[in-house]
């Protein structure tokens, strides 16, 4: 378990990391990157799994089940869509010999 200030440090450093990653991105990559970050927050699936794994009443189990379902959708959908978008960023003009 993380105690207060350590968590605060993690929050802060992660926020700066996110800011740095996106700071100098060409416009053409905005959409794929939005989709990619959409996939990354699919990590919520892990939390949903934990919530369902610790559910003890039917109501909690139901909530957890829905959360896992939604989280899994976020992960799979986010991955597929991002991958399909990036598929199109083959090296300039799609020249076969051109190495990316």
């Amino acid at each position, binding site marked *: 378990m993380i105690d207060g200030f350590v968590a605060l440090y993690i929050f802060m450093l992660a926020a700066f990391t996110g800011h740095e990653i996106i700071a100098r991105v060409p416009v053409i990559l905005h*959409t794929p990157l939005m989709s990619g*970050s959409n996939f990354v927050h699919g990590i919520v699936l892990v939390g949903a799994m934990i919530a369902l794994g610790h*559910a003890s009443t039917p109501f909690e189990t139901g909530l957890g089940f829905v959360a896992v379902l939604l989280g*899994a*959708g976020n992960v799979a959908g986010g991955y597929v*869509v991002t991958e399909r978008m990036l598929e199109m960023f*083959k090296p300039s003009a799609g020249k076969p010999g051109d190495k990316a």
Partner: protein
Amino acid sequence: MSWLPTLVDACYFLAALLFILGLKRMSSPRTARGGIVWAGVGMLLAVLATFALPDMHNRGLILAAVLIGVAAAWWSGRRVAMTAMPQMVALYNGMGGGAAAGIGAAELVAHVQRAATMVPDTSPLRPESWAIDALHQVPAVAPLSPVALLLGVLGALIGAVSFSGSLVAFAKLQGWMDRRFVFPGQRIVNLLVLLLALLHGAMLATGHLELPVIAAFFVLSLLFGLLMTLPIGGADMPVVISLYNAFTGLAVAFEGYVLGNEAMIIAGMVVGAAGTLLTQLMAKAMNRSLGNVLFGSFGAAAGGAAQEIAGAQKPIEAADAAVMMAYAERVAIVPGYGMAVAQAQHKVWEFAKLLIERGVKVKFAIHPVAGRMPGHMNVLLAEAGVPYDLIEDMDDINPEFPNTDVVLVIGANDVVNPMAKTDPSSPIYGMPILDVAAAKHVIVVKRGKGTGFAGIENALFYADNTRMLYGDGQAAAGQLVSELKSLDV
């Protein structure tokens, strides 16, 4: 089995590292394609590690839910057309927000039930939190620390708003919902709903954990997401989706704190920060502040003072348009959402190739917010096989328009509307535009005489050097192609 928790933690650590490296790679065109694979490996590790967590119940249910969710989303994501990508991103993002809200709900309900039955919390994830009971009216079994409770409530609120908001965005882009929904006093109603949601959240966070309060809290949060998104016009959707993406990230980070899961905190926070910056960049590209997008909905600000446009729209036949471009020296093609809807990108590229064979210099001019997402047009043109170096950004091509013989505007409207420069009463006043009116001739391919997505008249269509080619983008491009081919016979 003492090595198991360490192994799980190591997996989470690796996952967080892979997410950051993957996103980093995705931010450069050269490495972007590998980036998603890195992040994907990280996700796989994290999910497998979670299965291995000790003391997990309902493993069968978990597996079933994961498989169903993955299968459904994989299938829908595979078969949807590239043009529908923006709404799919909105949909999957909404699911993530819903999952975060669901975690929050499960934690809050569990808290209530544990308090009611006085059973000590046996969760291995937060053993030391048993001791913390400050602020709670419930006795010593409170499983959530005050900070965790506060962040859990906040995460649930943000997640729920992102969930319902994203679904509205999805429905709008999918065309299931009327473009905008405005009623008098809307802002006040929205504000009231938000305040009520916050009030219920504050009650929960200060220990008034009762089921009716939890239920009301979630209903109000969902309602707010709905109300907040309804009045926003389609032109602003990319900004809104990006904002909800950042919201979901934050919600995930907060729920990660509640569950004591570092991978969730890091991944969520990185996305939260990156998404916020991305949202600002997009809003800036439209010369609008975020507040303006969210609260000053298009049209509402337009009032009655809009300039009247003199003149009439002058039509042109496809044959004449084709000849005009065939004998031009420089042609610029400006694609917009209309091209995406009509799936016309392949036909347009076929037409452009024919022009290039005839020795015409063809460029594609892309406005930063053309389509429903920044980069939307680039993705579509790339799909059709248009080489990277024929595509020009707004800043690069704007000075070239006066030397351009013909500009073919296909499915774009607001991004080429000169009123953004001339009419201070126009809701898009100040938005940088593609200066196509400076070209010698402009041909606009358009379905009908209606206004664009923002619901604004476009002075370009009435300009002296503009001709209108009415028709669906796909059909019009097809006609142009066949007319061009018939020139050589």
